[in-house]
């Protein structure tokens, strides 16, 4: 109760909760779920982009893409570390991912079919991620908040590169422009869905907001993304696939059409084109890598034993 009060006051005063601080069990659990889900998303998110590494259309784009994917692996690593400060091991989190208990962002269940999809992911998916992460920089849990600061810097770099890649297509040959438009058609709505259900259908949000794990509502963040992105699409000369989209002169925001939540839940629940493959890829890498991880541990043990034996002589 005293601890509880101290916790509540600290959160209310925009202080940061640190790993050694007392925290309500549900706060801890919520954070573990959210941070590990975020880590899994970075990890699984390497796959749709990795799908184009060997086919990138120029060496410069190939290097940019590889570098981006490397950053994602790095983000995944920070995030697993942040979650580990809450007393859960990376292996346990991976186990939950592999057996389907833990989730990752459903956007990665869509396939990257053309090079323009890679550009669109950089522009839209990273764009949406940044809106969310900027908000999370003010999260009440210290390690997560600091990870977000670091990640946001790299993500906005990725987003600019994605936009630039999209620009090259939009200003390119008719085939390139068509490829860009088709990518926007396929990725627009899933990007909006990344912010999660409407506030009215998002029952867990209230407690998270109170604990300042979450700082803005799903719908607010989504609106921020739309407002930011539409002028960019206009500048590219591409058409956002939403006939209801228009600037609302009164609010100063863009109004947009109804999201097809049925599709959202379909994909979340396993009916995206890549759900099975993404998970199978992660499981296969884990299973096929088991002997390598065991070997590394065995070697480290032997080496330590040898050092000890040498010291004892």
């Amino acid at each position, binding site marked *: 109760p005293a601890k509880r009060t101290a916790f509540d006051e600290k959160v209310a005063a925009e202080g940061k909760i640190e790993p050694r601080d007392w925290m309500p069990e549900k706060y801890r659990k919520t954070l573990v779920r959210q941070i590990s889900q975020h880590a899994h998303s970075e*990890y699984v998110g390497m796959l749709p982009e990795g799908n184009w590494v060997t086919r990138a*259309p*120029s060496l410069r784009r190939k290097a940019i893409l590889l570098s981006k994917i490397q950053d994602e692996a790095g983000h995944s690593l920070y995030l697993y570390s942040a979650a580990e400060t809450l007393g859960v091991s990376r292996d346990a989190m991976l186990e939950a991912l592999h057996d389907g208990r833990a989730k990752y962002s459903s956007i990665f269940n869509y396939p990257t079919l053309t090079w323009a999809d890679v550009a669109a992911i950089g522009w839209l998916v990273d764009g949406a991620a940044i809106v969310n992460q900027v908000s999370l920089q003010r999260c009440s849990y210290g390690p997560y908040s600091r990870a977000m600061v670091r990640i946001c810097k790299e993500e906005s770099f990725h987003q600019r590169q994605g936009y630039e890649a999209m620009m090259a297509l939009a200003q390119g040959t008719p085939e390139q422009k068509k490829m860009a438009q088709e990518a926007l058609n396929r990725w627009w709505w899933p990007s909006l869905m990344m912010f999660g259900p409407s506030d009215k259908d998002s029952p867990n949000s209230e407690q998270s907001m109170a604990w300042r794990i979450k700082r803005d509502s799903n719908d607010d963040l989504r609106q921020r993304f739309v407002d930011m992105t539409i002028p960019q699409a206009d500048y590219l000369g591409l058409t956002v696939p939403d006939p209801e989209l228009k600037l609302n002169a009164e609010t100063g925001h863009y109004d947009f059409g109804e999201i097809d939540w049925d599709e959202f839940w379909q994909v979340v629940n396993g009916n995206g084109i890549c759900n099975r493959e993404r998970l199978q890829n992660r499981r296969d890498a884990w299973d096929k890598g088991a002997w390598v991880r065991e070997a590394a541990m065995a070697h480290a043990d032997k080496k330590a034993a040898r050092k000890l034996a040498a010291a004892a002589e």
Partner: protein
Amino acid sequence: MNKDQHVEFLLRLGDNSLVLGHRLSEWCGHAPVLEEDIAMTNVALDLIGQARMLYSHAGEIEGKGRDEDAIAYLRDVLDWRNCLLVEQPNGDFADTMARQFLFDVWNFEVFSALTKSSDEQLAAIAAKALKEISYHRRHSGDWVIRLGDGTEESRAKMIAALDRVWGFTDELFQMDDVDKAALAAGIGVDLEALRPAWESHVGAVLAEAGLEKPSVTWSVKGGRTKGHHSEHLGFLLAELQFMQRAYPNSNW
């Protein structure tokens, strides 16, 4: 040394880097542990970066307007000059690390020597690359040791992996007319002379790993000097080059 030979000499180096970088990039998202996703991507990035510098330099010397992408994306298999070793498929993690290690040790010696090349641009590229390659060599060598000195299973896999690639290493030390001309011009390297240093470093790492030098007797050559590759390279190129072939004359 004529201009064609100079260009060819640079392409041999660049093709090694790009093909091996490509192979490593195939691991992207599939490494045995997240830290290796980062490390292998890092090596792939270095190698692709080296290929870009070498290709750009070759294109300038050639003077026919080919840039790095024209060189990478618009040559068919017989015009590639990488050694057979680097184009071999990834296999398992031991295969990948055995291939990488035997190449890294050679590549380190080659680029060390190239820092003194009379082709100043090449010497500058080599100086930059050498720092990267020095890391590559340590990274792959560490894995040879970990796997060789790890479990029974990893040791067996590393032995099998070394056997599978060992016969591709003779090619690394072969000198043909182009190599000799490059050497005579002070541009190139005496590859034959690198063998003792290569054997000594490889031997030391194998010893630390508790492994013997493979006793395989086969040996194949011809990729680097004649473009006589294995059947694997064509499939690699079909993937690598798809976009530039399918959408010619586009900017990306």
